[in-house]
């Protein structure tokens, strides 16, 4: 009996072949010698496991001394196949899955997906549900910006900012836990409304937060705004003009920092954003300092929206009354046979969505977060695609940091605020 021979293992894997096919020698041009010393370009891997890349992002940097001459972001290290998984789940089961893409903007992910599904269904969302969505979306925006501010300041060497930001973030996560039962990935937003009404005592908690937060943002400003180190690290560092940003499809605070007031909450209001009175902070030059102050100002505006949502919270149902889409109230299960049938039908098969396709963009904390859903008439989406702002914004890294110092690359990447879970999906 002969032992089975194993196939030779020397053959490179397709991935390795692909990686080796990238010809890096083209980037290694000869650089004229300075002061008699020979200099040539050095290609260096930053990441994927580098704390300053805010996740598992690999940057292939071409350096001349300390100056970045070229940069290639390489992604795919946290690819989870969420879009594909979503095709195999009924619509309501997709919600907790898409929430896990951009893990700092879970309410936004759910909102984009639910909004797309509601558009396909032609479903009217009750006013109270819309206000509750806005309330949570804006709290989520503050939370996301707090994580950005804390980690970015940490990259610049300001460690106490990290503790301060996470202290306020903790308050917001506490509020999320109170209303939806989980601190992250809350699946609070459902197709047709929200899963549950806010509990008693919720309003006082949010009001207490809104009373404290503007003062806290002032304190962040006191610490950073005019700090000489922050100014030197951020001001006039790695600017990119509005035209280039628009060409690259960059949206969100990065575009607003360059002076373009493009905000989908104002430009194409969804979920009753037209009822709220807030302003769009814009910068002028589009350098790292503008990116920083624009986001800081956005947090203040978000606090205003949260307060207005609480003030104007209308009475009424928190989820649509359409029993073909939303689960019946629990108390009806024990008394109504019809409710029980709807419940079984919705849980096992889910609701069917008429064939068609829709793109539903919302303003996420990082920019335009759009959800494309194609339905083939069944109870599962035929295709779910997310236009994640981090993914599109990441391609602006190379034009931003070209001919800047490698230390400024770290600062720029921090101000770019990429979330790798959203980039790779």
């Amino acid at each position, binding site marked *: 009996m002969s032992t089975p021979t194993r196939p030779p293992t020397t053959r490179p894997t397709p991935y390795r072949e692909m990686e080796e096919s990238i010809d890096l020698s083209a980037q290694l041009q000869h650089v004229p010698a300075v002061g008699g010393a020979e200099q040539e370009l050095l290609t260096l891997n930053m990441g994927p496991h580098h704390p300053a890349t805010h996740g598992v992002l690999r940057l292939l940097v071409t350096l001349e001394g300390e100056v970045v001459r070229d940069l290639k972001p390489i992604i795919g290290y946290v690819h989870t196949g969420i879009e594909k998984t979503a095709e195999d789940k009924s619509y309501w089961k997709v919600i*907790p899955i898409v929430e*896990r893409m951009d893990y700092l903007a879970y309410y936004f992910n759910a909102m984009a997906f639910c909004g797309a599904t509601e558009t396909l269904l032609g479903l009217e969302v009750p006013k109270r549900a819309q206000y509750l969505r806005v309330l949570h979306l804006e709290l989520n925006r503050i939370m996301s910006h707090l994580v950005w501010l804390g980690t970015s300041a940490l990259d610049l060497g300001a460690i106490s900012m990290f503790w301060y930001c996470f202290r306020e973030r*903790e308050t917001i996560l506490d509020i999320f836990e109170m209303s939806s039962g989980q601190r992250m990935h809350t699946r609070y937003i459902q197709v047709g409304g929200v899963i549950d009404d806010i509990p008693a005592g919720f309003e006082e908690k949010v009001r207490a937060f809104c009373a404290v937060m503007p003062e806290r943002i002032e304190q962040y400003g006191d610490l*950073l705004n005019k700090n000489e180190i922050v100014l*030197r690290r951020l001001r006039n560092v790695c600017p990119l003009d509005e035209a280039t940003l628009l060409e690259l499809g960059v949206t969100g605070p990065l575009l607003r920092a360059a002076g373009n007031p493009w*905000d989908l909450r104002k430009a194409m209001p969804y979920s009753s954003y037209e009822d709220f009175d807030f302003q769009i902070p814009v910068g002028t030059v589009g350098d790292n300092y503008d990116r920083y102050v624009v986001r800081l100002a956005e947090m203040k505006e978000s606090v205003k929206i949260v307060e207005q949502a609480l003030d104007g919270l209308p009475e009424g149902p928190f989820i649509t009354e359409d029993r073909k889409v939303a*689960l019946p109230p629990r108390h009806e299960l024990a008394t109504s046979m019809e409710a029980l049938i709807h419940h079984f039908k919705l849980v*096992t098969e889910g609701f069917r969505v008429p064939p068609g396709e829709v793109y539903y963009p919302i303003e996420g904390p990082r920019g335009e977060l759009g959800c494309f859903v194609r339905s083939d008439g069944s109870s599962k989406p035929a295709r779910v695609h997310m236009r994640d702002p981090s993914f599109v914004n990441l391609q602006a890294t190379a034009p931003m940091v070209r001919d800047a110092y490698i230390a400024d690359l770290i600062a720029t990447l921090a101000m770019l605020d990429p979330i790798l879970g959203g980039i790779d999906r």
Partner: protein
Amino acid sequence: MPWNPGDDVISVQRGPRPGGAGGAYRAFGETLRGLKTTFARVLEGPITIQYPEEKVPVYPRFRGRHRLHRFEDTGLEKCVGCSLCAAACPADCIRVVAAENTPELRVSAGERYAAVYEINLSRCIFCGYCEVACPFDAITMGNDYEMSDYNRSDLIFTKEMLLAEPFDRAPLRAEGE
């Protein structure tokens, strides 16, 4: 621009140019302002919690480890093995095998009962859809959030483990706290 933002735009204030005489002032003045901010926070006291000894109480809606329930009066299990929780689970972590109740062996109040009920907690994403799906309130999400273990196989919770009274490990928040 296809859209006119009107008065809704505010320009943010740019910081001063670094360096120079202003920079020399800021190196002290603004640093002192920052230190003032930091030291004023010291007066607010620490907000950290000494975790393993001190635990954060959870809200009533908190979704922790699952629990299966019995009727308090009869002691029969509430679960009738309908597998709706397994159908609702987005992570496919619940396994239910139903069996018929017989007059000799009566386990649940309905016709059938769950002979096997397993939750793989290493797959569970704690979305709580099982709790939403259950028409008999037989499965609920409890308060327990300390579930780490040394083996993955130990994280597959059987029916007996889910039915047992959990250790009182995670405190529940009192009304209005």
